């Protein structure tokens, strides 16, 4: 059974009151959802709290899920909206994807490959990962989110476009910009 139809079956069972089916959904998605929310909040405990809240929201909204759509896309859309609501309540500055980015990142346009000192050659993979984690906290969340959805959660660009209700081309470009922001911050550190 494919993951797609397996999810639809579990949702149908959960809708009929089968709590075990929903528990299976939680077990399947607890890790990817915590990875996503952890990278977005930067704190494990906060990520676990958010993950719980998202699952409760999902359970209460199961009736509105349409099996024609991929469940994981629907789940992450709810998670993304939950984060946005949280930031709005906290009145944290959020950055629209349509806004220009301040600083160096604002001028991230296709450029000549940098022949200067290579980050990759300087550090081993583990060190690079540590640097990425630190750099991730520093880039605007709207870019960070697309990067995380693509490279941590391994969604396709089309799926991310569905989750964020954005054109595929915009998603591709923003993920590229996020990676360049990370690379530049790592080079500067």
């Amino acid at each position, binding site marked *: 059974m494919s993951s797609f139809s397996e999810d639809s079956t579990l949702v149908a069972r959960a809708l009929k009151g089968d709590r075990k089916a929903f528990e299976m959904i939680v077990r399947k998605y607890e890790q990817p959802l915590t990875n996503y929310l952890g990278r977005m909040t930067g704190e494990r405990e906060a990520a676990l709290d958010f993950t719980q809240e998202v699952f409760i929201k999902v359970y209460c909204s199961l009736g509105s899920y349409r099996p024609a759509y991929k469940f994981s896309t629907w789940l992450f859309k709810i998670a993304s909206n939950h984060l946005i609501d949280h930031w709005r309540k906290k009145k944290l500055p959020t950055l629209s994807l349509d806004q220009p980015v301040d600083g160096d990142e604002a001028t991230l346009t*296709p450029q000549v490959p940098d*022949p200067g000192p290579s980050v990759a050659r300087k550090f081993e993979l583990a060190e690079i990962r540590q640097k990425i984690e630190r750099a991730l906290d520093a880039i605007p969340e709207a870019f960070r989110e697309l990067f995380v959805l693509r490279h941590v959660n391994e969604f396709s660009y089309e799926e991310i476009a569905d989750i964020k209700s954005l054109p595929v081309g915009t998603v591709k470009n923003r993920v590229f910009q996020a990676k360049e922001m990370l690379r530049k911050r790592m080079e500067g550190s």
Partner: protein
Amino acid sequence: MRDCRNAESFYLYLEEELDPSGRREFEAHLAHCPSCRDVLAERRLLHEAFTSLPPFEVPPDFALSVMARIPEAAAEKTGWLAALASGLAALVVGLLGFYILTGESLSDVLIAVSRSLGSGFGRLLPLFAKLLKVGDLLLDVASDFMAMLGKGLVALLSSLGPDGIGLILGLGLLLSVLLFFGAKRLLSLGEKI
């Protein structure tokens, strides 16, 4: 010759997101551009790091703690529906039982029900007094029967799901329509008399 300024192509190439012709063009360019090959090697290591960030640790009992916070929402939401459907189903069973025992047609049963409802509150009072005496005796038996019927219906509804509940409600609606026309016929008979 490929344009070296398109930095996005390096990532798209590594993610295998370039279309076949774009990929061929990119590889052809790499074959004679050492600078781009160096950049690609660097981006490849970065790409590997991007796609292998360590997961956040999730406690083994996390799913159970989520489930503990989830209310018995499904049961709560359908509770009133189950009660309504049980009542309607009991009414249908009662009418069918009356039909089987007396041999009266369903329309006659409906007319009789309507007639008894329309016979006046004053005439019913003595009847209720007598019924109360008999009711005491029957109450124990009836409560056991209703409890069994209720449990059976709840089990039936949970197995039927929303579609089954809809079907039963539809049956109830049909019965209401029959009752309405039965009462209408009774009234028209009264006018003729």
